[in-house]
C-alpha cells in the first residue's frame, strides 16, 4: 500500500478519548529486531527454597484437565448460562452508520413495549458515533425476544457524516478529516546503523509492498455479563480474561468503590485478548439492572460481537531491503501503516526477528471509521512476522540460497531465548525439507505442492499473581487465586503445582479461581498466566508446608527444616518411615488452620520463547484453492507444566493462524462503511475439513527446563500464516504479498505472473 504524504501532520493529534469501560490502550513494541526479554531479576529466597523439583511426579506429564468432566457434560456454567431469579435480558441499540451525529433519541415507544423494565440512552444527543455498531441506547425486558422487539422501537435520528474505512480513503488527498486532529498519527522514525552504508554493502535490493488484513476475535462465547445489585453492591458474572481488572473497570465506570464490586468468571468461552474489562456493554448491563431493580443478562449477539468487541488490526509496509551476494542482510528501510479502527493505534514489531544491521522505519497510525482493535493472540506479531518472512523467501531466491539456510545465516546468535538456528536445522530434518523443490512446482497438472517456513518469538514471563493457601486439620489443602481459566487450563495447572509441591494426589487439592474475592491475579494476556500463577502457587503452598512442618516437627523430635512432604506423607528427608501420613500430620494442625499468603517471585519463571514452523500445501491453480497438508511446529516453553494442555495450545495456535491466512477477513463496504460479513457464515473460519496434519514438538531440553515456566498461549499462532504463504509461493512460483490467501488472489497473482513473464 502506498503512503501518500499527509499535507499537514502537525499538531500531533490525540486519539478520541476511550469510552468508559474500554480496556486500557494496548501498546506494542515497534522496535525493529529487538530480542525478547530475559528475566534478569535476582532469584528470591523463597524461589530458591522452593525451586522446581529435579524429579517431578506430575510436572511435565500429560494431565487431563480437572474441569474436563464439567465441560463435556454441560455442567460448566459460563456467564451466558447464568440464570438468576427474576432476571431480565438487556439489548443495545447501535449505530447503523460508520459516522454520524445523533440528532435525536426517542425512548418513549421502547418504554411502552411489552415486558420492558428499563431503558437508557448511552450516548447524548449531539454526540458522534464513530463506527457501525457504536452503542447508542439500551433496554431490558423480561424475555430475550421482547428485549429485541423493544430495542427496535428505540428511535434514533442520525445526521450522516462522511466516513473513511480504509487506509487509502483515510490518507487520500482531500479525505474528510473524521478524527479530531487528523486521520493519522505519524509515529516517530526509528533508525539503527547507517542505511546508506547498508545499501552500499548490498549486492541486491528488493522493493515491494506487503500487507495483512483485519480479522476479528470471534470468541465462541460473546462478550457480556449478568449484573445483580444488592443495595449499592454489584455482583457481575462476566465473560472476561481479567476477573480483578473487570472489578476495577466496573468500579471506575460506575464511580463506585471497588469494595462494592464482585466479579465472577467460573468458566469463559474464549477471549484471545479481547475480554479484559466490562466494556460499554458491561456498564450498560449494570445500569439497566440498577434502573430495573432486577438482575440483567446482557450478552452481545454475533453481529455486535463482530462489530464492537475488537479485532486484529491490519498492517502494511512499503519496504526496501538489501542483501550481500553471500546472503547476509545489510539494510532494511520501511514505511509502515497500521489501522486500528476508530481512534485506536496499531503498532507491530518490524522488521521481525532477523538481523538487519542497518535499518530505518517510519510508522504511521491511520484511523478509520470501524470497530476498534484490541490485543489479539500475540498482538502485532503475526503481522510483523508475515511482512518480514515473505520478503525473506524472495531475498533467498535472489541470492539463490535455500530459505532455511538463508534464515540461519541471518538469525541472532543462539542463546536460551534465541534458539532459531537449532530449531531450523532440527525442524528441516523432521519435516523432510530436503524434498522441497525450488520456487514453482514444475510438475504437470493443476495441483501444485509447496513447502514454506517461518520463525517467531514472544516475550511472556511471569508477573504478580497472589495466592492464599489453607491447610486444615481434616487434611484439606485449599489454594485460592483470583486468576481465570480462559481455556488454557489454568485451573488444572494450579491444582497440579499444588499437588506436586505437597506430594499429594491432585484429587486432594481444592483449587478456587475465577472470583474477585480471591487474591489478586493479573489479566490473562501476553502468555503471562501460567508463568505468573505457577510460581505463586509453588511458593505459597511451600510456605504453608513450612508452617505445617513447624507444628509436626516437635512430635517427631526433629527440626522443621529436616521435613519434606512427598508421597502423601510428611517425613524426615531421606527417611520416609520417620514421619506421618498427610492426614495424621494435618491432625496436629488443631483448630487454628494454617493460613498463608504468598505471591509470584522471580526465579521460577522466565520470559522469551522462540519457535519455527514448517508448512506443506497443495494449491489448485485452476480454482485458486489452497489446502494445507502438514504443519510442523517446534516450540520451546521452558519447564513444561501440563504437557497435554501445552500441546493443545500449540495445535490451537496453528489452526488459528491457518484460519487467519486462508479464510478470515473483516470486509467493509467502502461506500456505506458497513461490515459485509458480521456473522459466522460469511465471516469464514477454518472447520474440520480444513485441518491439516499438525505435529507439535515441545522443546524439552535440560537448558529449557532450567529456565522455569514460560507461557505459550500466543507464540505458536505467529508463524503458521507466513509459513503457509511461503509454501503457496513455493508451489505456484509467484509472490503473494498480502493476506488473506483467498482463491481470487491466488488466481490474480498467477495471472500477473504470466503477464510479467515470470510464469
Amino acid at each position, binding site marked *: 500500500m502506498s503512503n501518500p504524504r499527509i499535507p499537514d501532520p502537525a499538531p500531533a493529534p490525540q486519539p478520541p478519548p476511550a469510552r468508559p469501560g474500554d480496556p486500557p490502550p494496548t501498546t506494542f513494541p515497534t522496535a525493529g529486531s529487538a530480542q525478547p526479554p530475559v528475566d534478569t531479576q535476582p532469584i528470591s529466597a523463597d524461589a530458591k527454597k522452593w525451586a522446581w523439583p529435579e524429579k517431578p511426579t506430575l510436572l511435565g506429564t500429560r494431565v*487431563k*484437565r480437572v*474441569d*474436563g*468432566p464439567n*465441560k*463435556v*457434560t*454441560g*455442567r*460448566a456454567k*459460563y456467564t*451466558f*448460562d447464568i*440464570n438468576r431469579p427474576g432476571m431480565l*435480558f438487556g439489548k443495545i*441499540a*447501535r449505530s*447503523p452508520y460508520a459516522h454520524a451525529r445523533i440528532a435525536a433519541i426517542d425512548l418513549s415507544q421502547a418504554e411502552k413495549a411489552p415486558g420492558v423494565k428499563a431503558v437508557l440512552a448511552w450516548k447524548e444527543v449531539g454526540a458522534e458515533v464513530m463506527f457501525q*455498531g457504536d452503542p*447508542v441506547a439500551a433496554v431490558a425486558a423480561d*424475555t*430475550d*425476544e421482547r428485549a*429485541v422487539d423493544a*430495542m*427496535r422501537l*428505540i*428511535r*434514533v435520528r442520525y445526521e450522516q457524516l462522511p466516513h473513511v474505512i480504509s487506509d487509502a480513503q483515510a490518507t487520500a488527498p482531500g479525505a474528510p478529516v473524521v478524527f479530531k486532529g487528523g486521520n493519522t498519527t505519524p509515529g516517530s522514525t526509528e533508525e539503527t546503523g547507517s542505511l546508506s552504508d547498508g545499501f552500499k554493502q548490498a549486492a541486491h535490493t528488493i522493493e515491494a509492498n506487503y500487507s495483512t488484513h483485519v480479522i476479528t476475535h470471534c*470468541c*465462541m*462465547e460473546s462478550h457480556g455479563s449478568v449484573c445483580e445489585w444488592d443495595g449499592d453492591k454489584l455482583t457481575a458474572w462476566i465473560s472476561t480474561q481479567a476477573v480483578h481488572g473487570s472489578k476495577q473497570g466496573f468500579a471506575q465506570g460506575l464511580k463506585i468503590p471497588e469494595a462494592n464490586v464482585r466479579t465472577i468468571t467460573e*468458566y469463559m*468461552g*474464549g477471549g*484471545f485478548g479481547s475480554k479484559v474489562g466490562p466494556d460499554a456493554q458491561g456498564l450498560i448491563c449494570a445500569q439497566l439492572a440498577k434502573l430495573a431493580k432486577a438482575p440483567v443478562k446482557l*450478552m452481545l*449477539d*454475533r453481529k*455486535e460481537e463482530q462489530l464492537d468487541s475488537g479485532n486484529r488490526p491490519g498492517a502494511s509496509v512499503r519496504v526496501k531491503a538489501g542483501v550481500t551476494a553471500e546472503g547476509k542482510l545489510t539494510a532494511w528501510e520501511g514505511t509502515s501503516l497500521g489501522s486500528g479502527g476508530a481512534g485506536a493505534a496499531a503498532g507491530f514489531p518490524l522488521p521481525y526477528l532477523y538481523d538487519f544491521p542497518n535499518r530505518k522505519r517510519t510508522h504511521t497510525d491511520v484511523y478509520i471509521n470501524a470497530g476498534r482493535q484490541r490485543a489479539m493472540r500475540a498482538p502485532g506479531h503475526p503481522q510483523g512476522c508475515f511482512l518480514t518472512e515473505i520478503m525473506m523467501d524472495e531475498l533467498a531466491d535472489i541470492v539463490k540460497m535455500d530459505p532455511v539456510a538463508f534464515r540461519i545465516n541471518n538469525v541472532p546468535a543462539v542463546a536460551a531465548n534465541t534458539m532459531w538456528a537449532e530449531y531450523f536445522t532440527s525442524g528441516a530434518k523432521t519435516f523432510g525439507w530436503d524434498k522441497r523443490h525450488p520456487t514453482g512446482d514444475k510438475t504437470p497438472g493443476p495441483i501444485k505442492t509447496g513447502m514454506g517456513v517461518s520463525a517467531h518469538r514472544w516475550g511472556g514471563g511471569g508477573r504478580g499473581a497472589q495466592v492464599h493457601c489453607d491447610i486444615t486439620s481434616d487434611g484439606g489443602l485449599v489454594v485460592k487465586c483470583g486468576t481465570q481459566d*480462559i*481455556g*488454557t*487450563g489454568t485451573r488444572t495447572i494450579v491444582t497440579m503445582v499444588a499437588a506436586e509441591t505437597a506430594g499429594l494426589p491432585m484429587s486432594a487439592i481444592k483449587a478456587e479461581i475465577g472470583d474477585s474475592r480471591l487474591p489478586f491475579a493479573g489479566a490473562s494476556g501476553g502468555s503471562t498466566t501460567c508463568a505468573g500463577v505457577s510460581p505463586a502457587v509453588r511458593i505459597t503452598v511451600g510456605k504453608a508446608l513450612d508452617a505445617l512442618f513447624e507444628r509436626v516437627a516437635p512430635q517427631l523430635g526433629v527440626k522443621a527444616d529436616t521435613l519434606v512432604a512427598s508421597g502423601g506423607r510428611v517425613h524426615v528427608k531421606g527417611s520416609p518411615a520417620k514421619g506421618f501420613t498427610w492426614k495424621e500430620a494435618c491432625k496436629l494442625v488443631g483448630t487454628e488452620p494454617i493460613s498463608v499468603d504468598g505471591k509470584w517471585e522471580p526465579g521460577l519463571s522466565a520470559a522469551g520463547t522462540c519457535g519455527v514452523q514448517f508448512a506443506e500445501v497443495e494449491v489448485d491453480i485452476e480454482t485458486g484453492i489452497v489446502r494445507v497438508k502438514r504443519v510442523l511446529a517446534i516450540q520451546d516453553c521452558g519447564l513444561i507444566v501440563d504437557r497435554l*494442555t501445552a*500441546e*493443545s495450545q500449540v*495445535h*490451537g495456535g496453528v489452526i*488459528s493462524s491457518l484460519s487467519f491466512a486462508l479464510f478470515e477477513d473483516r470486509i467493509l463496504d467502502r461506500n456505506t462503511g458497513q461490515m459485509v460479513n458480521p*456473522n*459466522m*457464515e460469511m465471516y469464514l*473460519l*477454518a*472447520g*474440520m*475439513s480444513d*485441518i491439516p496434519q499438525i505435529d507439535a514438538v515441545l522443546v524439552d531440553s535440560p537448558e529449557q527446563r532450567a529456565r522455569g515456566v514460560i507461557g505459550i498461549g500466543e507464540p505458536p499462532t505467529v508463524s503458521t500464516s507466513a509459513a503457509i504463504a511461503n509454501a503457496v509461493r513455493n508451489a505456484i512460483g509467484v509472490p503473494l504479498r498480502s493476506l488473506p490467501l483467498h482463491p481470487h488472489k491466488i488466481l490474480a497473482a498467477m495471472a500477473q505472473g504470466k503477464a510479467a513473464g515470470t510464469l
Partner: protein
Amino acid sequence: MAPNDEHPDKSERGSAVSRRAFLKTAGVSSLAASVVGVEVGAQPAGPPMVGPGETAVHLMVNGKRVDLQIEPRVTLLNALRNHADITGNKRGCDRGACGACTMIVDGRAVYSCSTLAIEVQGKQVRTVDGLAVGNKLHPVQQAFYDHDALMCGFCTPGFIMASVALLEKHPTPTPTQLRKGLDGNICRCGTFKRIREAVASVKGVPHV
C-alpha cells in the same frame, strides 16, 4: 441491532411457521379451487392458530417432559436455556453457522437456534446435559475428556452432540464421514485435531 436495521435473517426465521402455513394454505386452496371449484379465499381446515402471545409448549427433553409457557417464536435453544435452565448447549452465532447449539431431535442433529420449540413437540430432544448417566460419561464425552479435545469448552457441547449423531449413524466412520459429520461446527480455540482423534477413538456408542 439498530432501530432501522431490519435483521432480514431473523425476521425471515421468525416468520418460518407462518410462511410455511401460508404455502400450505395456498397449495391446498388452489388445489381445491381447481378440483372442486370452491370459492377462492375459503378457509381451509388446518391446525388452530397460536400466538403471537405465550402458549403452552410441551417438550420431551432427555427423556423428561418439559412444560413451558412461551411465545411460538421462541427457538428450541432459547426455550431450553432461558425458560427451562437447560444450558448445556450454547448460543454462539444464533443463525445456524457455528453449531454450538447442536441437539439431536428424533435421531438427527439439528441447530436448535434455528429450530422453533413449538415445532419439536412430540419429538425426542436430546441435549448434552442428558448424555451422561450419573457420573458415568457417555463414550463420546469420555473420549473428548481423555484426548483434551476441548479448551475453553464453549463449542464442546455442540461438537459432542454432532459426534454422537454421527456415531449413531456411522459407528465406525471413514475419515471423510467424520470430517463431513463435524463440518457444521466451529471451534475458535483450535481443538479440531484432538476432536478428530477423540471421535475416531470411540469404540461404539450406546444404542438409543
